[in-house]
Each structure stands twice: as C-alpha cells, then as structure tokens.
C-alpha cells in the first residue's frame, strides 16, 4: 500500500467510528486525539479493525505509534508492504 492509501484507510476507519469526524483541518503531525473526538476505546477499535482487515498484530507498547496520522503511516507502511 502507498502512504496515501494507508492514510485513507486510517481516516476511513475513524469515519466508521465517528461519522461526524471532520478531517478538513486535520494536522497530520498533531495527535489525532487532540483534534478529533476519540478516546482510548476508539483507539482500540482502530487496532481491532487493522487486525481484522490485514491480520496486523499491534502490541500495546506500539500504540503510541498511532498517535498522529503521519506516525500511523510511518508505523504501518512497512507492515502493509505488498498488500
């Protein structure tokens, strides 16, 4: 998957969680939780959805890697190579 495709997947998963999420002014380098109405359970939803879609096992100590959109893409890019 390309970086743009990974970004789209993340935003799509967030939109499934919160259909009112507004991505218009999203700063890709700032924490998602500071900009969107997401809590810890929502982050677990993102982790679960990635597991279901791509069989990705993300360890708890890796969760901070999902803090911003850019860090998500950086973290997921090598794991989603060839998909």
């Amino acid at each position, binding site marked *: 998957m390309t970086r743009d495709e990974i970004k789209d997947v993340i935003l799509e998963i967030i939109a499934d*969680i*919160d*259909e*009112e999420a507004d991505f218009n002014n999203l700063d890709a380098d700032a924490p998602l939780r500071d900009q969107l109405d997401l809590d810890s*359970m929502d982050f677990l*939803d993102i982790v*679960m959805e990635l*597991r*279901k879609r791509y069989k990705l*096992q993300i360890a708890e100590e890796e969760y901070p890697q999902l803090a911003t959109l850019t860090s998500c893409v950086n973290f997921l890019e090598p794991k989603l190579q060839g998909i």
Partner: protein
Amino acid sequence: MKQSAENQRIVITGVGLTAPGASNLTDFRANLLAGKSGISTIDLRYMGVYPAGICEFAETRYRKKRENNRGTRGGCIGVYCANEAINDAGITFSEYDRAATGVYIGLTEHGTVETENEVYNIGQFNYDVDYWTHHHNPRTVLNNPAGEITMNLGITGPHYAIGAACAAGNAALIQGMQMLRLGEVDLALCGGISECVGSFGIFASFRSQGALAEHVDPAKASRPFDRERNGIVISEGGCVFTLERLDRALERGAKIYGEITGYGMNSDAKDFVLPYGPRQRQCMEMALKRAGLAPGDITILNAHATGTMQGDIEECKAIGETFAGCTNTWINNTKSSIGHAMGAAGVLELAGNLPSFTDHLVHPTINLDNLDPECARPGLVANTPQELERVEAILNNSFGMLGINSVVIVERFVAN
C-alpha cells in the same frame, strides 16, 4: 395507601416507551384500542423467519449513532425511553438534583445478544480470541442499559438492574417506589427493557421447550387464551416511568397518570419454567392487601398470559379464584397486540392501560377467535374495547421463569 402522608404516596408523572408498532404512549394506546397488532417477523441466523415484535423509534434523537454503536440495543432503547419520560414529565433537573435521581431498570436477561454476536464474529476468524471485542464487558454487565441512561442524562444517583425474568419491569417499578419512600432518591426513573429479539438462543430455547409461537400471519401469532395458541411471540421494547413523591409532584404541578398503591412479589419455589397459580393468587392478594382494596375494587386486570397452553390456564385459574364474583373487573391481555417484551413486558403493559383512567376504555385481547374454555373468565375483554363509566384501579400481573411473581396496582389519582 391513600391515607399515607403525601411524601409516602408515589405517583407516575411521565411515560417514555417504545413498543412494537409505537414509540410513544399516544400511538401505543391508539393501536391497542384499534386492536392493531405490532408483530412482524425477524430473520435470525441459524433460526430463519419467525414472528417477532420489532421496535422502530428515533434512535438518534437523544444520542449519536456513534454512541449507539458503542453501546447496546438495550442501552439505545433505554436512553430513548428515559429521555421521552423526562420530557413527558416536564422535568428539567432544575427541580430535582441529578445526584438524588435513581435509575432502576428491570431486565429478563442482558448480554445474550452481545455474546452471541461476538462468538459469531470470532467464528469468522477461526475462533481466535484476539478478535473478541474490547466492548464486550461494558456491553454485557447487567447494569448496562441503566448505566447508559445515566451517562446520557448526567444522572449521578444510583443505577442498577433488577433481574427478575419477565416479572422484572414490575419489580423495577416496585424498587423505585421503595427507594422514594425511603428517601434514598427524590426522583426515580424505572421501567424495563428488552433487546432479546437479537438472540437466536432465546428463540431456539423457547422452540426447544415447545413454547415459541408460529403462525403464517405474524399479526395472528400472539393469541393468549385462544384454543389455537401455540406459544410466545418474542418482542423487544422498553418503557421507563418517572416516579415522584406526591408532595413534590404537586409542588411542581406535575401531570399525574396514576398512583401506585399496591404491589406484591413472591416466589413459587417449585419449577424452572412452569408457573404456579396458587402462588400467583397469593401475590395478587398481597398487592390488594397493601393497596387496601378488595378484588372487586379492581377495574382492569392486565393478565400476564403469554400464549402458552399451560401458563395461560394456570393464570386464569388464579384469576378466577381471586376475582370470583367480581362483576366489575375487566380482564385484558396486552401481549396479544405486542408479543412478550420480556423485561419490558410488565411496564409496557401497564403503560398501555394507564390512559384508561381518562378515556374510560379497556383495550381488548386480540386474536381471540376461539376462546379456550379453560381460560374463559367473566369480564374478559375480547377483540373490541370495553367502554366503562370510570376506571378506578388497574392490577398488572407479571410473572417469570424460576417462579418469580410480581403484581402492581395503580389507582386513579385522587387528591386528599
């Protein structure tokens, strides 16, 4: 009870509900009086198509779809009913403290639907429990629907579930009444909720027991007291009442639907599923005694009868013995119109009868085409409403598995 001090008299001041075919009391009452069934069908995995009572209501009127997705169907029903009840009562929480408000919700069961769904879900992933949702525990704890109501309304008083099988709605009403009388809370939101149409296991278990209704026309499937009855029609639903102490209700000029004057609860101590008429009779007598009423003082008796062969006869025997010679007592059955809403049944059926204090009508038992002689009782209102000069008291029966019986009596409100 009417002799009690006004701070010990408990009145119903608001009703919020969703039932098969109606999502407010006005529509619900209209359907019951018109003899209109709310029963349709559901197509459940493993089961196929069966008659069932499904609720349609404004699911996102009081909270977002996102919160509905995170919570449960029971929570969604509860949030809707609680908000509707509060609005109906005209309560703004300027007159009541949210910390002195209690939420008491009766449930037949809770968590079955969510558990079945998750087992099905991990079945898609070779039963790898890594795919089991982190939402499972908060969704399946027994206080879930009540807790979702408190989170939605910012109520910080106590909330919990009353588990009493299909007697649970009445039981929650009794609990709320007792907490108000004890002064533990100043406002009680109490009622019952059921989401059980989502569970194939509940349908399958009734079918295995030979107690699941089947009929080519789903509207005809729920037919208590009829010779052709063949079991229960499972429904979802919810009903929440606002209960207040009379002095506070009068102080704020609240509309009063009725006064709860009597109640009874007891246990058969006999069988897992079979009802026991003699104990039901004792329960009705207990409620009458508490209310200070004779059987003949009851104008409407809402029978619990679910449409099972044995259960209906057993209750009719108990009613016949308790109300022998009572010529002004009329009997109806609300499940014939809406099916069996389990934990919500008692309160929904009571709600459906409450408008009789003002419209002076007894809604009928429908689908009563061929009365079972063993269920024949004087005063049984069949297929068309019965008009009366006045309705003074409603007795509401609600019984459940493991032999739990509950009876609530509500009287027309008369100020001292």
